[in-house]
């Protein structure tokens, strides 16, 4: 199947340098990024990433004495392309901090306790409907250690392989109703309000799903769509 990649609406993506996130001014290029002619090199991609990266930990919450602390949640994320077509077999990496706001990463200097029963990193594969399901606990908020008063709202990191190299997506999922969402530099870098609200998961009615967990629905749209037979 031939795939095509088109430029994205500008307001649906960060423009790179974000006031309030000091590192961006050192790391985003000063020269404008340029569009290049697209060839098979950019419009192909690894269809078997799992030959290099194995799946790990489909369940981060654990159970019994090994249950991680925090509110039990189920995430149901659907991976689709720009046609809305599911991307079955998409490899998805997910990582997030524990309920106290602490990551497993050794560079995390936040003064919050680790949870011995929580290891916040999973790699899973989308099923036939493009659906990825993860049982975990709700992450906490935490202060960004950059000398400002910025706190990150609860969020979950996603890294997704779409169908081709240019479909690769790394993003974050947010939770509805969190007061810190309104002041988060990263979420609000998406200037278009509709695009921004699509970065926030939907809580399913508690009459649905398991009795002991909150279920959050989410949709991730990776770049690319079926090439049209005749170009306009």
């Amino acid at each position, binding site marked *: 199947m031939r795939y095509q990649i088109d430029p994205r609406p500008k307001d649906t993506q960060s423009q790179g340098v974000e006031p309030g996130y000091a590192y961006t001014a050192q790391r985003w290029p000063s020269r404008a990024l340029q569009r290049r002619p697209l060839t098979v090199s950019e419009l192909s991609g690894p269809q078997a990433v799992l030959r290099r990266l194995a799946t790990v930990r489909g369940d981060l919450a654990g159970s019994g004495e090994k249950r991680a602390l925090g509110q039990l949640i189920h995430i149901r994320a659907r991976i689709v392309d720009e046609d809305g077509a599911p991307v079955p077999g998409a490899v998805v990496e997910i990582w997030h901090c524990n309920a106290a706001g602490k990551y*497993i990463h050794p560079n995390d200097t936040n003064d919050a306790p680790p949870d011995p029963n929580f290891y916040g990193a999973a790699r899973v594969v989308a099923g036939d409907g493009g659906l990825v399901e993860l049982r975990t606990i709700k992450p906490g908020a935490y202060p960004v250690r950059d000398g400002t008063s910025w706190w990150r709202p609860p969020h979950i990191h996603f890294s997704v392989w779409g169908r081709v190299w240019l479909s690769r997506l790394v993003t974050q999922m947010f939770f509805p109703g969190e007061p810190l969402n309104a002041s988060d530099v990263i979420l609000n870098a998406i200037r278009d309000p509709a695009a921004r609200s699509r970065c926030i998961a939907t809580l399913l009615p508690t009459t649905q799903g398991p009795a002991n967990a909150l279920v959050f629905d989410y949709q991730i*749209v990776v770049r690319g769509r079926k090439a049209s037979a005749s170009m306009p």
Partner: protein
Amino acid sequence: MKRLVPTGEMTTGPFFPREFAAGANDLTVLDGQQVEGEKIEIRGRVVQGDGKPLDNLVLEIWQADPSGRYDTPDFLGWGRAATDASGIYVFRTVKPGSADGRSAHVNFLILSSGLMRQLQTVMFFEESGDPVFLSVEKSVRHRLVAKRQGANRYVFDIRLRGGEETPFFDD
């Protein structure tokens, strides 16, 4: 058909799991088997605007096999490395072939804390008539050519911002 808008990209943040960044930078072995081709090492240093090296920055590559084909059963063509505290990354791979009007090249994708979106660039082995190479302004395109060091090593340093800034693409 109604078109959906791609989800907004966001930074990996500083805490991309070490486990994810490790063990995927050797493309010369697949499923325990050595792959065919001229084995090379690609390494470089990644720095930010003030010249400071970046730690735990993630680089992913995508390349053709030695005959210029992509995603063949015998060669995956995809790998990932992370920089150390000195900003150094290393890949082991085989030299890609040229095909379909493209010269030999390796696509790079960069993820980091402080990078709101992925950055894309391309490493070439020499100056050439490659259409992507030629699409870059003449005065800076030499920055996309790796420096050969010894028989099998290519050095491709990446500067995110500032003087000698690497050219990046947004498609």
